[in-house]
């Protein structure tokens, strides 16, 4: 092997050693998250505006103050303003900042936050630190408070007719230390969509977070279940679905979409629908039931009804992690059986007069 190739192979081998060393640790910590190529953990510096970290989470006792430091980095000339705003959530789970006039949540941390400096100018390549101070008042109450720190960068627009600014929303979670963190929820609405004959029946369950802290992000996702019975009490369809990735913030509503795939077209008539919402760990947040009249592929009328059966949540669905573990154990058993069989075969071959000796 010539020298350049040997150099390259040594270097690559060394890189592989390091990557393997980290891969083991990453998988041990997070068995469900294993993208083959890890996303970068820091900005490259080529972004118009970046902020690190992108989320602040602190636990502070009432009457105390915490600070966090943000690092801003720009690849363009920008006028930057840093403004604490309210945090709002849309029914699909996405987050946005809202100004004081729209920040009606009793769980807002907006007024607890200040940033220094509040404005600055960045040149291409500049890196600047911003100190965020979070002061929790003595009468803050229980639970968690939420805000978004808007880091707004405005470039010069020149003579063009549409200018663009960039706004990095740093989600901020302030746990009021030493207080109860209640995870409760209520189904506030059930919507049954239209369905063509033979098509699955879409059902949307609106879940409101009535607690004082967020819940529902991976790995303990929100779970919704639904069962549909005909007028005779026969089970027509049953389904469940998870809604992971994003938490549900107190006072906000998440729409959980379900699809009831009945085995045969839904005939006109009266039906009983039961839905449940909970968490993957088995926590049941709420159950609701409704009776409705189905006619011509749509709901004609619906009324609330008592829940007839307990609705299971997380424990009823198959946990993908358990499937992976089961297949790993299964695989190990297969390998073990193979090795035992191979060893047994070897011993038999070595036996005097065995086929391998001939």
């Amino acid at each position, binding site marked *: 092997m010539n020298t350049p190739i040997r150099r390259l192979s040594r270097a690559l081998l060394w890189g592989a050693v*390091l990557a393997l060393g980290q891969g083991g640790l990453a998988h041990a910590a997070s068995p469900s998250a294993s993208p083959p190529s*890890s996303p970068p953990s820091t900005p490259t510096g080529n972004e118009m505006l*970046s902020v690190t970290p992108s989320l602040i989470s602190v636990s502070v006792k009432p009457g105390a103050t915490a*600070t966090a430091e943000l690092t801003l980095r720009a690849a363009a000339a920008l006028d930057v303003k840093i403004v604490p705003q309210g945090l709002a959530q849309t029914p699909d789970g996405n987050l946005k900042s809202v100004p004081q006039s729209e920040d009606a949540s009793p769980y807002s941390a907006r007024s607890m936050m200040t940033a220094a400096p509040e404005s600055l100018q960045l040149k291409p390549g500049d890196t600047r630190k911003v100190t965020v101070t979070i002061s929790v008042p003595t009468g803050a109450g229980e639970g968690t408070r939420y805000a978004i720190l808007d880091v707004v960068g405005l470039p010069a627009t020149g003579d063009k007719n549409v200018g663009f600014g960039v706004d990095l929303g740093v989600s901020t979670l302030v746990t009021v230390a030493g207080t109860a963190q209640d995870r409760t929820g209520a189904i506030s609405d059930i919507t049954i969509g239209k369905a063509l004959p033979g098509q699955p029946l879409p059902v949307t369950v609106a879940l409101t977070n009535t607690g004082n802290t967020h819940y529902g992000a991976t790995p303990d996702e929100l779970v919704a279940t639904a069962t549909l019975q005909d007028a005779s009490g026969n089970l027509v369809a049953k389904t469940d679905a998870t809604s992971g990735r994003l938490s549900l913030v107190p006072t906000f509503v998440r729409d959980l979409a379900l699809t009831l795939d009945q085995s045969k077209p839904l005939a006109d008539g009266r039906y009983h629908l039961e839905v449940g919402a909970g968490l993957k760990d088995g926590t049941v947040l709420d159950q609701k039931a409704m009776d409705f009249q189905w006619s011509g592929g749509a709901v004609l009328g619906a009324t609330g009804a008592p829940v007839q059966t307990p609705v299971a949540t997380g424990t009823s669905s198959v946990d993908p992690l358990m499937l992976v573990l089961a297949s790993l154990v299964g695989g190990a058993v297969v390998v073990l059986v193979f090795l035992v069989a191979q060893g047994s075969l070897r011993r038999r071959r070595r036996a005097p007069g065995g086929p391998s000796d001939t």
Partner: protein
Amino acid sequence: MNRSRLAVLTAGAVLLVATVLVPATALAAGSGTLSVSPATVTTSSGTFSVDIASSTSGVNASGAAASVTFDKTKLQIVSVAKASGGESWDAAGASWAGLPNASIIAAANAAGKLPAVGAYLTSGAMPDDPPQALITVTFLVVACGDSTIGLPVGPSDGEMLDGTAGATYGDPIAVTSTSGAIVNPCGQQTPDVGSSSANITGTVDAGFLALTCPPSTTIPLVRNATNTKDLTCQVSTNIVWNLNANDPKSGPTKGHMTDGAKVLANPMHVLSGPHAGANPGDPPTWDYDQNLANGGIVGAGANTTNIALTLSQFGAPQDPAGNYGIQILFQAVNGF
């Protein structure tokens, strides 16, 4: 040989090489040192950063790797980045291995040890003086008390490679390390109100968020036509995100292009995620169609993503002539 068997054998071979061959390689001449800079940090709260640097004696280096140990009850890692600046491995154009993502940092914070991060050259070498910065580690102080930032040495921990041209290029060299000291007396803890009630246990997520959009563009404005202009923004991050579009103006002109007192009759829309119409000739449908009079989400996902966006502005017959303009604010937010 089928593909899966080949994959298993390949993985096995790499593991074998990693665990057997590398440690068995003879050490080259010269020695290297890994160190923490600054060597002593005095702090009481918030975050601080240290550089992990390499230096050599009697040899130049072509690679350096360092793992970092710390007292997880007193410190938590916020971020790990390639050290920047003139005297750094990054500035020398090194290749990198082991730069951690958020989940690896989370695991490191649980274990009190950051797995090795390394940089290496495939040709050339780093000078032996001054020390070459490898990585910058930012810590958050979570509890008072003195502690140590350690740099363990050995296979899969602190290592350095010979950069001498010739047969020994890339061979390991003997490495020692010097730890860093964190001085944090408990009597000086935290800038709180009412020290007896203070209890600040902070974790600052290790993620990052960046957004790149063109600074401006020109959309044609033709009457009786839907005028469009395409652009691309990039959300750069390592966790889940959503992108919102908004006109920062308020009042009745929000979302409308204006020219002084003149206002276009129709608001601008921001579209993304096109789908072909159901029938030939049908207009496309969109995953997101945000009327800027209200504003809202135009994209969502995870990790770094380029988002194709389309601005749409209908020119109404009654719109007076003018030079209209608008500013659009794109907001990226990380989910949790």
